[in-house]
């Protein structure tokens, strides 16, 4: 039996209530030096809350935290940082107007000269080194707001490792990353382990957990379930610990025959971002789009949905060429889009779950100008049940939901508008395994209903498990269109890195 002294970090009896709701109930966590400690649990289990408390961003109701044998007084980020804790946040914590370098060193600026002036040149150099180290080619003087979500996530990683921390919390650091970057990150994590740094790693990607974790702690509904060495756990047991029941296979078999062409894209280009992209999707078909970070997948989806202008090319819906200038046009033509950036483009935080779900199809639930509240609530309630959205009720504000449940709300909104073709951009980003299975089931159901689906994902298993055909992109160029049979992780990666 190990005593607390053997741990770098111990958390005991931690409880946190949000105005009456127990988000954490007597939770414990013990982390050793140089280990990767995975923190697992469904959406809303309380993982982020626990980490925010550790980081001093939230104050606990009770419980204690000790680092290297000394108690953390809790409540101040400054103290946590000084004691060597760093965190990659689940929701990207960046100042959009500041540059990459300024964000990386925010709060830890190096100053020089007699008066302690800022030196942005030096900051940029230091940032460049860091970024090189993690293998991303972002200019350090770019304003953060011009980065893609994935790039921002890489910057957050750079920021966390720049700190010479003893403990690095990584709350879903890879949710927007593709395999290439994940591999890089794992390399970094291994280096850090060597130096005795402890990593607390949160992810919903099971394969990642089994690749990198030494120890796994599971939370469920704010309760501490247990801590096991990773080597002694298999995926089914872990899932059982997380969800409290067995889960059937993640990717349900589907044998649906595809029907008529729904969406066709010919020689679509957007200057400087992607060019000459052509594909078709049919009723009941899933087209996967794969590619590395920054390949232009999101840009294609945004262009089709009317959020960005195309510079040339043609979009056809059910054989008819259409002009799409705004999301309104797209929705009218039966296109639905779930953005990869749910916070930015997905939901309205202060509206309720119900109001968000019906936002894109409110006209259907209104007679003239007046909203028919009853039928609106019915529709929303049904989707809340169908998608198993964990919420206090349809009137809960979405800002209080966990990330995964927020994602489900966005999907529900798009579904309710009953599109003919749905473009899902990283649809399971930040979603727990149980919910993922539900979303996959849902995708198959949509398929069965004859809806055409385009799925963009950085998770190859997801693409492989769901798609009938796979389009691979490299730097805005289409490099392959693979059939289900041709497609393997290796072929996709080969085409994705095909320059």
């Amino acid at each position, binding site marked *: 039996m190990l005593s607390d002294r053997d741990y770098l970090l111990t958390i005991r009896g931690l409880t946190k209530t*949000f105005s009456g709701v127990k988000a954490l109930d007597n939770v414990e966590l013990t982390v050793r030096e140089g280990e990767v400690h995975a923190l697992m649990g469904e959406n809303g289990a309380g993982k982020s809350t626990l980490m925010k408390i550790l980081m001093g961003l939230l104050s606990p109701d009770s419980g204690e935290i000790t680092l290297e044998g000394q108690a953390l007084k809790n409540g101040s980020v400054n103290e946590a940082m000084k004691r060597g804790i760093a965190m990659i946040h689940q929701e990207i914590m960046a100042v959009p107007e500041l540059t990459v370098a300024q964000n990386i060193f925010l709060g830890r600026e190096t100053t020089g000269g007699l008066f302690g002036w800022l030196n942005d040149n030096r900051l940029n150099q230091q940032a460049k080194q860091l970024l090189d180290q993690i293998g991303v080619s972002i200019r350090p003087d770019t304003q953060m707001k011009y980065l893609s979500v994935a790039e921002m996530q890489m910057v957050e990683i750079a920021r966390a490792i720049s700190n010479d921390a003893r403990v690095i919390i990584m709350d879903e650091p890879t949710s927007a990353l593709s395999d290439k970057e994940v591999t890089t990150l794992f390399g970094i994590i291994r280096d850090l382990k060597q130096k005795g740094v402890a990593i607390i790693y949160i992810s919903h990607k099971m394969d990642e957990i089994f690749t990198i974790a030494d120890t796994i702690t599971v939370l469920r509904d704010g309760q501490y379930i247990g801590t096991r060495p990773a080597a002694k756990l298999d995926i089914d047991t872990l899932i059982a610990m997380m969800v409290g029941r067995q889960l059937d296979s993640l990717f349900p078999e589907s044998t649906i025959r595809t029907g008529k062409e729904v969406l066709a894209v010919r020689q679509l280009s957007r200057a400087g971002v992607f060019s000459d992209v052509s594909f078709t999707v049919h009723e009941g078909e899933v087209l996967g789009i794969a590619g590395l970070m920054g390949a232009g997948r999101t840009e294609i989806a945004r262009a089709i949905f009317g959020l960005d202008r195309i510079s040339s090319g043609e979009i056809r819906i059910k054989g008819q060429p259409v002009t799409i200038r*705004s999301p309104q046009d797209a*929705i009218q033509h039966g296109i639905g889009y779930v*953005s990869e950036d749910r916070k930015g483009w997905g939901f309205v*935080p202060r509206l309720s779950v119900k109001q968000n779900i019906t936002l894109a199809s409110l006209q259907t639930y209104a007679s003239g100008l007046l909203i028919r509240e009853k039928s609106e609530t019915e529709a929303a309630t049904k989707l809340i049940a169908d998608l198993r959205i964990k919420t206090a009720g349809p009137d809960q504000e979405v800002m209080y939901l966990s990330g995964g449940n927020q994602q489900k709300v966005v999907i529900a909104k798009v579904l309710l508008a009953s599109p003919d073709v749905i473009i899902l951009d990283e649809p399971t980003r930040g979603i727990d395994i149980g919910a993922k299975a539900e979303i996959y089931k849902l995708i198959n159901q949509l398929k069965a209903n004859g809806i055409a689906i385009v799925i963009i994902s950085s998770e190859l298993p997801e693409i492989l498990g769901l798609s009938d055909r796979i389009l691979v992109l490299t730097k805005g160029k289409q490099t392959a269109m693979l059939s289900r049979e041709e497609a393997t992780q290796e072929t996709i990666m080969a085409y994705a890195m095909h320059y």
Partner: protein
Amino acid sequence: MKNAIDTYFKPVRESYKTRVSRLGKAGIFVAFIVICVILSLVTPRFLTVPNLMIIVTQVSINALLAFGVTFVIITGGIDLSLGSMVAVTGVVAALFARQDTYPVIVPVLAGLLSGVLFGAFNGFVITRSKVPPFIVTLGTMTIGRGLALILSKGRPISNLSDSFNFIGGGQVLGVPMPIIILISMFAVCSVILKKTVLGRYMYAVGGNEQATRASGIQISNIKMAVYTMSGLLAALAGIVLTSRITTGQPNAGAGFELDAIAAAIIGGTSTSGGTGTMTGTLIGALLIGVISNGLDLLNVSSYYQQVVMGVIIIGAVVLDSVNRK
């Protein structure tokens, strides 16, 4: 049965949520009640029917403006041209309301139309250009003041018809017309905000413009609508004011925008958009009116009146936010 299950599932959370929303609405209401109770205790003249009538009548103009600007602020905008719109619309109405000229409907429609046009112009510039609403409406505030002066040649327009003067000065069944107008507009605005598609979209635009756009909603239409409605309500305020003082005043309404915005914010509308209720705004406006009336009743010296007014308003909102915690 179904309800029973629901209740069973989420008893704790539900209570949390309802408590928050209940207090959110009640907070400033509590502060308002506290102030009213104090005033009733210190001066017996406060809590009398005629005095309360007078307060509500006085509040009506600010409240009408505040309703309009609540729509605007909910969408994340601002309207600084309110006071100038009051002047322009009042002058326009007065020009058509001179004794023995047109029937009362003409000045009323002319006033309202000018407000609608003014507001729509605000909305047009804001949606077509990328100029922040603050600058656009600051510009039209100046423009509007100039227009009011040009239209009236810098002089009050008086000798308005009795039927026109009834709007601000008359009573129906003992209730002053401004109060009737206030109550009906409160009802209309509340319904628009809470019960209609347009109202929902206002919250959506203010809460997350991008997500709203991605939901297929034409943002510019919503913005056009709110600025136009703000203009319409300002016109109504302008007509009531003109009729109340029986004169079209080119310099009327100066500074009204700040009072109206204050009423909305005191009532819980957030300047960052996405939240706000008409009830809150109404209470905000009443709060300002009650304080001002109370200070007059207590005959607080005019220098100190300003100090006390500021302290009480800040205090009330502090009380509100403490309550909300």
